[in-house]
């Protein structure tokens, strides 16, 4: 985990308000880890999940949701950007290893970490992907065995009993639905989406309730076991 400045290799839209940004980062983060991107003129950094990495660059998929992400789109090739990372723990590959049939389930931009995760699982597992979007699908061409739901419930696309483990990422409503669907049926590793400030576990603004007390999404997660999450008390 370091704080550094890096060169942007490319930054372009892939569909509507979703962009891909590739930055020179000479390391290989784990799937589900994230970096804080420090946007000029914005006080707080933007935490973005790794979508792909090749040991020399890291690619982020991000959706324009506010001022900060809008500013990110203004950066072009050869601009420099300050990053902090890799942050968080990512998906525990050792926990996934014993399981043959793996479902990767995403809601919206939650597809980003699934791209890297599917690559890290390739060849060792039977991987199936289920991706939900509100309007347009994106990044699905980078995933194996994909089924998509546009405007519907991605959780309706599969039967939990057909899999040995589920890995998921998406917004809060999605997280609730996937935790309920998998409860008692199949182990679930789910990456949470929380507002953050420091990203390193110091400020305690990204707290999430678990059966083991209040945890820090950034430093203790962002990936948690579904059964750990006290999801029904949230919102």
């Amino acid at each position: 985990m370091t704080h550094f400045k890096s060169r942007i290799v490319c930054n372009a839209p892939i569909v509507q308000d979703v962009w891909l940004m590739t930055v020179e980062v000479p390391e290989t983060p784990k799937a589900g880890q994230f970096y804080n991107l420090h946007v000029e003129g914005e006080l707080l950094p933007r935490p973005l999940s790794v979508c792909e990495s090749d040991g020399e660059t890291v690619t982020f998929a991000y959706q324009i949701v506010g001022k900060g992400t809008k500013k990110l789109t203004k950066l072009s090739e050869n601009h420099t950007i300050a990053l902090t990372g890799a942050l968080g723990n990512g998906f525990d590959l050792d926990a996934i290893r014993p399981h043959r049939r793996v479902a990767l389930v995403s809601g919206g931009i939650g597809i980003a970490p699934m791209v890297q995760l599917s690559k890290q699982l390739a060849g060792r597992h039977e991987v199936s992907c289920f991706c939900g979007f509100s309007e347009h699908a994106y990044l699905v061409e980078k995933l194996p065995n994909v089924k998509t739901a546009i405007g519907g419930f991605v959780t309706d696309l599969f039967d939990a009993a057909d899999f040995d483990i589920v890995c998921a990422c998406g917004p809060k409503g999605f997280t609730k639905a996937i935790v309920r669907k998998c409860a008692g049926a199949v182990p679930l590793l789910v990456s949470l989406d929380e507002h953050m400030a420091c990203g390193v576990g110091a400020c305690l603004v990204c707290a999430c309730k678990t059966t083991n007390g209040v945890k820090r999404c950034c430093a203790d997660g962002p990936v948690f076991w579904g059964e750990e999450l006290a999801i029904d008390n949230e919102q």
Partner: protein
Amino acid sequence: MTMNNEQLTIAGVLFKNPVIAASGTFGFGLEYCNFYDVGLLGGICTKGLTLHPRQGNSGLRVFETASGMMNSVGLQNPGILHFLEHELPEMRRFDTVIIANLGGGTVEEYVEGAVLLDASLVDIIELNISCPNVKHGGMAFGIKAEAAFEVVRAVREKCRKPLMVKLSPNCEDIVAMARACVEAGADALSLVNTFKAMAVDIKTRRVVFDNVTAGLSGPAIKPIALRMVYEVCEAVDVPVVGMGGIMCAEDAAEFIMAGAAAIQVGTANFANPHAALDIVRGLGSYKINEIRGCIRHGKT
């Protein structure tokens, strides 16, 4: 890093430089060890501690504003006993001043907490009578000078450690508050904590925070914080530790020129994890003794 051969002491405690990590923004220091040797800082204030563990507030806890941020963490902390057993021994390995930030809901709770910390290896107790995010987090004591006097005196009577009182900008009169705390036995003052603020989500037509209000920090508050630090420095004789939106060494120099003995770096740690160290290095080019309080008393 020494400061031009001068020695900085606050409440009898020697500081290697005037840059302190602010409570609630630096965890217990361990979280920033990956970035640099936190022993290079003048001091570290712990996350706000209470006698009993606290889970903190529900709902959204952070919201960015123009040149600032609001937080509503609500003094989430593992409790003083956990701190003494687990976090403090780790922190003591850092070659820096360890300041325990103490919150509470009643005078008795503050005193009980202070007694525990008094018997520990912390260097200074920072009495937090200014957390705006919990009903019983000390804010009640932070508004009225008489209430502050009462709690500071009660803690002072039971506590031999150096006592620094952290003031709220939400108090009725910052100078009256500062004088009351000094009269009650404070060895030093730190100010300001966050400003009570709020935000509305116009899409959902609801307030953003479950608690309705939250604490505003960052560059947005710096000019007001600076004014308050200046006024307090004019009014009291104990060392004043200034804070509020300090992002860089130049900001820190402003507070020192206003009379601050030292400064705390808070929100800046989120914008740049190296911020506090950058400020230590940036201040290295100033003769701190010469600039301290230089705007006061007609000095130039």
